[in-house]
């Protein structure tokens, strides 16, 4: 091939530009710490890292959700323990009144019962932030009304997302704690020979199960009928019964009280199960996120050592190019002739 003057210059210019472009890209990779500067550098890598980032972000959100739910359930658990203790206290009062076969100090026992009733009401109306924790969906409504002690919430469970297709309830409605459903009638004989029968009285407007209690004597004549729908109402009745020295009613309240105590225990174990499940889910999410972050790092982040070597190589190549160019460019017959004639 015939080599002409402009070809030499063009070739050198193209080589220097190519080399510098390469160096510039390596410098940018080093500067940003990222392998992929624009999607076209590595399309599959871009798509994969977008997928990973979406997953990492949603996992992070699920972890936050789980933390919130864990916090709510932990606080609920604490309150359930207090409720359980209070119910034990009430049971103790009932036992002591009942075991003495009458009242040694009716006024003291009655006020003790009414104090415990107020304590129950306080616990049952616990708030976390602005939310009542036992009123189902009705988080802004006080679940148990003062005076009537009627439930005003509902049975709603606030389910929170803990994974792409998994949810977990973060609350316990009061109906699952301080009430129980008398599924089939229960009859017991009281110490004075009367019979107490407990039947299902349906639901209140707030979906609270009603317990009807009817007490009859040995001849099946009615002695007393009453109904209640939660532990607070029950305790209130206890307090009144103590004041009235109504031993039959006091004894008849023992069975439902134990049922409610069971109910609180069940609620507490349910909360415990949920807390464990949330913990496991969170551990799994954290592991997944760690793996995703590792994979993301492998795709995105530059390997400084490799990059360092590549930059060194590019620099050497450019230096070599400069050096050969500086030798080729002055080569011309004109300059040779001039120097030989001048010499």
């Amino acid at each position, binding site marked *: 091939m015939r080599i002409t003057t402009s070809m030499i210059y063009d070739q050198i210019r193209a080589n220097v530009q190519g080399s510098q472009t390469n160096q510039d890209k390596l410098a940018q990779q080093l500067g940003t710490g990222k392998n992929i500067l624009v999607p076209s550098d590595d399309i599959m890598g871009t798509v994969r890292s*977008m997928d990973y980032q979406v997953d990492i972000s949603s996992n992070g959100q699920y972890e936050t959700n789980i933390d919130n739910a864990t916090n709510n359930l932990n606080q609920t658990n604490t309150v359930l323990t207090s409720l359980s203790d209070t119910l034990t206290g009430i049971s103790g009062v009932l036992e002591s009144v009942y075991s003495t076969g009458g009242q040694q100090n009716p006024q003291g026992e009655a006020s003790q019962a009414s104090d415990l009733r107020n304590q129950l009401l306080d616990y049952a109306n616990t708030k976390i932030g602005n939310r009542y924790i036992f009123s189902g969906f009705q988080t802004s409504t006080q679940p148990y009304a003062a005076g009537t002690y009627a439930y005003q919430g509902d049975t709603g469970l606030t389910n929170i997302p803990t994974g792409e297709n998994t949810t977990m309830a973060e609350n316990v409605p009061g109906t699952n704690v301080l009430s129980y459903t008398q599924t089939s009638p229960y009859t017991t004989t009281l110490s004075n020979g009367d019979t107490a029968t407990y039947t299902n009285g349906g639901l209140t407007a707030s979906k609270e199960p009603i317990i009807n209690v009817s007490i009859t004597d040995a001849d099946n004549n009615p002695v007393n009928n009453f109904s209640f729908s939660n532990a607070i109402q029950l305790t209130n009745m206890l307090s009144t019964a103590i004041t009235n020295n109504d031993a039959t009613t006091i004894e008849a309240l023992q069975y439902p009280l134990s049922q409610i105590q069971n109910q609180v225990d069940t609620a507490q174990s349910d909360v415990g199960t949920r807390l464990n499940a949330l913990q496991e889910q969170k551990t799994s999410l954290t592991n997944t996120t760690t793996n995703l972050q590792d994979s993301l790092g492998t795709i995105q982040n530059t390997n400084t050592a490799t990059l360092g070597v590549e930059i060194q190589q590019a620099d050497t190549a450019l230096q070599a190019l400069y050096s050969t160019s500086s030798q080729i460019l002055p080569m011309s017959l004109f300059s040779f002739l001039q120097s030989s004639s001048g010499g």
Partner: protein
Amino acid sequence: MSLQGIYNIGESALIASQAALSVTSNNVANVNTPGYSEEAVTLNISNPNQTGEGSIGTGVKATGVTRNYSQFINAQLLTQQQNQSASSATSQTWGQVQQVMNEDQGIGLSTPLSNFFNDWSDVATSPDSSAARTTLLQDAGTLVTTAQSIAGSLNETVANANKSITSDAGQINTIASEIAVLNQQIVQQGTNGSQPNELLDQRDEQLTALAQLTNFNTYNNSDGSITVEVGGQNIVSGSLANTMSTTSDTNGNQAVMLNGINITSSITGGDIGGQISSVNGIQNTTLTGLNTLITSLTLQVNKLNSAGFGLDGSTGNDFFNAPQLTTLNNTTNADITATVSKEANLSATAYNFTFSGGQYSVFNNQTGAQVAGPAAYTAGTPIDLSATLGMTVDIPAGAPATGSFTISPLTTAISNFGVAITDPNKVAAASTAAGVPGDSSNANLISQLAGQSMNDLGNETFSDYYSGIVSKVGSTAQSASDTLTFNNNLVSSLQSQQQAVSGVSLDEEATNLMLYQKSYDAAAQIITVTDQMVQTLLNIQTA
């Protein structure tokens, strides 16, 4: 053979050497002139004299100056330069586009989209928290702004490409006029009998400039002029140049017109070719993709939000602005209107609506499937497609009997995109009125949309569909850049071949300079010797 004859031989040699030295000097002078082809003097033997001693030469004649030129290489080079220029424009444009959605640097829709769904998850966790709701509305606003800013940048890129098309057409016209003038001068000089080397070089240089702008074909005419054809239409014919113009098409893009004919689809090379293909690519792939994504998101979120209940007990609220339908006329001058009548039945798809002979039909633009009709209609009575397509179409009374329209919720999806709710209490987290404020099941459903495959997104999730758009942009940018590298290499190799034939080599010229200087010296020496011979003769006579 007379002594005078030897004088003449010497003189012819002096003249020839001088001519050769002039051409050599001119070559040296033009070593860096773009488009210059190396020239050489053509030397011929002068007619010999027949004498008694035999045939004796009469010296040398410089009969012409030729340029070293390969039409074959030059034609190839022009074609490759058209491709190179087109790929340079495409590569540059797509390079800009991928910066707008450079997810690798955290720029784009991915993060705002994730945040939006994460916020719904937050609302599901605390349905009664006004903080979670306010954050959701703020992040939804960010999603809207980001989508609009991406679309804005893409539209700006499209607008710039359209401006380039117009300005390229102007430059093409200037070049066409130059070529027409050069054609005229070449024909003129040809009739004078001399080779118009410089004019030919200049015309080739103009063709090289034209190759930067568009693809074209040239035809040599017998008189030395050339005809230049763009998109099957003559732009230069002899000394006549036609004017290329641009006009806005129905999409607001620049269409290229030559001799009254729309040649846009035939222009594939040069800067215009690159700009046209970039405009089509950005609009048909990237913008349509984004519009589809936003429409689908709007429809899905609105469907659930309007079915749920806000903290204030309200229901039926759209979360995002309801999509709007646009109609694009494909054939007639009638103007039909389409309105959203049941948003829940709308999907993120464009439809082809045709009517003729009192019957209408609707086809899905993407799949081609018939989705409504054929059924009778009465002009002036709206056609109610609410139950199937969520829209009502009105062919006005007095409209032509046939028509074809594109009805689409996509066109204005991003420009119309906005958060419709301003009151955080209207975020519908609850599924029932009774469940307010603690029920979060509706918020749960909306947050779960993030992981669901959408029919109108080709059964992909929002984020996968968006990744698809980014990867398409990336692969288009990559292929444009690869094509550019390929074309650059090809052009540079062809330029080398062209320079090997037509380029000036200073070493060669230095040799020629010495060669012709020596022959000039020798010719002068002939005259000196002849002069001495004449002197010798004169001395004999006087002696």
